């Protein structure tokens, strides 16, 4: 049906049965008893969750399931009521967000946070860490950081080219459209040379043809040895690139497993996917009679 090659998936990620909270062969993130309430509403209540290293994991679930809140807790943007979690063996509870990013766990936001009065290129260069010019004394002596600055600029341009933003490098970030800001944010996150990239609805509002070329870049991150954890409502994207899928509902992890298995679970279909996932809505609504094999191609 499709002329897209399904990329090679990482397998054998878990130990034992694929069920909520199952152990992974090589976990990069381990979460234990993390709970967060807002007033009377329990937004997140995760007993145990492990995210596999070197793979692409998708976090899916209905609106209000607690996906973004979990992201906020794991990256230090919010503090949980209880719980511990570790990243690459280091305990992260209580570590502020900027340190989490320096440790190699970097995230993007559903509602983008580009610095609108800096240019696209400046936004990118800001993402890089360990810059010599960050220290006050060094900043006064350009010869100390000029070379590094040039190298960063090259790297930034390389990334911008991948994200089709290179022509916009001297424009203010404020002038970008919503979709382009999403791309800038993702590119900027990669400037930090992360080990774990967390993307919150990276493709929402990005047009479908561009999404497809970006998926290749996400897959490349995996090939370069990075781990990716992302939240997304676009199930075609999830099915195409995810090695592992975690399903959340009402703050809890309700299912886990490889995409093809998880998306066939009745509970996931009922709560989230709906019965018409693979059906043409023209047929469902009776607007067209039946689709022939020819037409689906």
């Amino acid at each position, binding site marked *: 049906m499709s002329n897209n090659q399904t990329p090679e998936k990482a397998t054998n990620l878990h130990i034992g049965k694929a069920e909520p909270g199952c152990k992974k062969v090589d976990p990069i993130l381990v979460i234990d008893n993390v709970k967060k309430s807002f007033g009377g509403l329990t937004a997140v209540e995760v007993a145990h969750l492990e995210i596999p290293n070197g793979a692409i994991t998708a976090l899916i679930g209905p609106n209000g399931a607690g996906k973004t809140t979990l992201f906020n807790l794991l990256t230090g943007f919010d503090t949980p009521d209880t719980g511990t979690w570790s990243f690459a063996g280091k305990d992260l509870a209580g570590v502020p967000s900027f340190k989490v990013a320096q440790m190699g766990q970097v995230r993007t936001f559903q509602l983008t946070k580009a610095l609108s009065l800096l240019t696209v290129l400046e936004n990118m260069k800001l993402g890089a860490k360990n810059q010599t010019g960050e220290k006050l004394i060094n900043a006064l002596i350009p010869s100390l950081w000029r070379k590094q600055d040039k190298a960063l600029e090259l790297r930034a341009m390389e990334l911008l080219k991948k994200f089709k933003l290179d022509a916009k490098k001297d424009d203010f970030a404020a002038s970008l*459209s919503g979709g382009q800001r999403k791309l800038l944010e993702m590119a900027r996150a990669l400037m930090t040379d992360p080990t774990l990239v967390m993307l919150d609805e990276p493709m929402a509002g990005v047009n479908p*043809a561009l999404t*497809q070329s970006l998926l290749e870049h996400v897959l490349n991150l995996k090939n370069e040895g990075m781990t990716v954890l992302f939240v997304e409502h676009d*199930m075609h994207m999830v099915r195409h690139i995810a090695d592992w899928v975690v399903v959340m509902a009402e703050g809890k992890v309700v299912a886990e497993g490889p995409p093809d298995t998880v998306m066939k679970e009745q509970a996931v279909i009922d709560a989230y996917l709906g019965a018409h996932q693979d059906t043409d809505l023209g047929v469902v609504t009776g607007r067209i009679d039946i689709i022939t094999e020819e037409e689906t191609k």
Partner: protein
Amino acid sequence: MTRVVDVSNLVAGYLPGVNILNGTNLYADKGELIGIIGPNGAGKSTLLKSIFGLVKVREGSIKLNGEEIAGLKPNQLVSKGVGFIPQNNNVFPSLTIEENLQMGIYQDPSKYNERLEFVTSIFAELGKRLKQRAGSLSGGERQMVAMGRALMMDPAVLLLDEPSAGLSPVRQDEAFIRVSDINKAGVTCIMVEQNARRCLQISDRAYVLDQGKDAVTGTGRELLNDPQVIGLYLGTLGT
């Protein structure tokens, strides 16, 4: 067939000197469901807003049942039969469902009962929960209230701005089925959507906007399989 909406050579924009729409053409015949898709910033929402008088029309014409309506105010347009459902903030959260529906027909309250019957014949669920506050509803349910409210004035055409935005897959499908149900009840609909594939599946005809112009048009089915549309916009993922 009666032409309900006829937009020709429309030029419109927000900032002085910057046009978002650069000569857009679009029409809708009675009973049609029209889809509008296109990349970010192509002018999809701007087109709907200009038809509804929220964006000033600089050039071109908009006709409703043959009568020129460009330049009219939204309240005048509502009484002439244009219904609009914005993407966000489309219900009054502190009012009940019943009050929200009443707001939809404040210009002609005597028809309330008759119209309520029509709306609840499409959305039976609204009729059962008239006393519930709209603010306590989920995103998908709010969308239904907004649709119900817009239908109260018996519009000749209903304009929908991204009815599936921000909803999870199952709720998105429900939203599209709802739009299709409204259309089947005889209401002409013009819908802007990001979820292009779903939109084209239920549309009678559709337009692909690009940089403020109608780049490609055809039946929903034609566009779904059009190599140019696939290359420019749809991509091949999910086929």
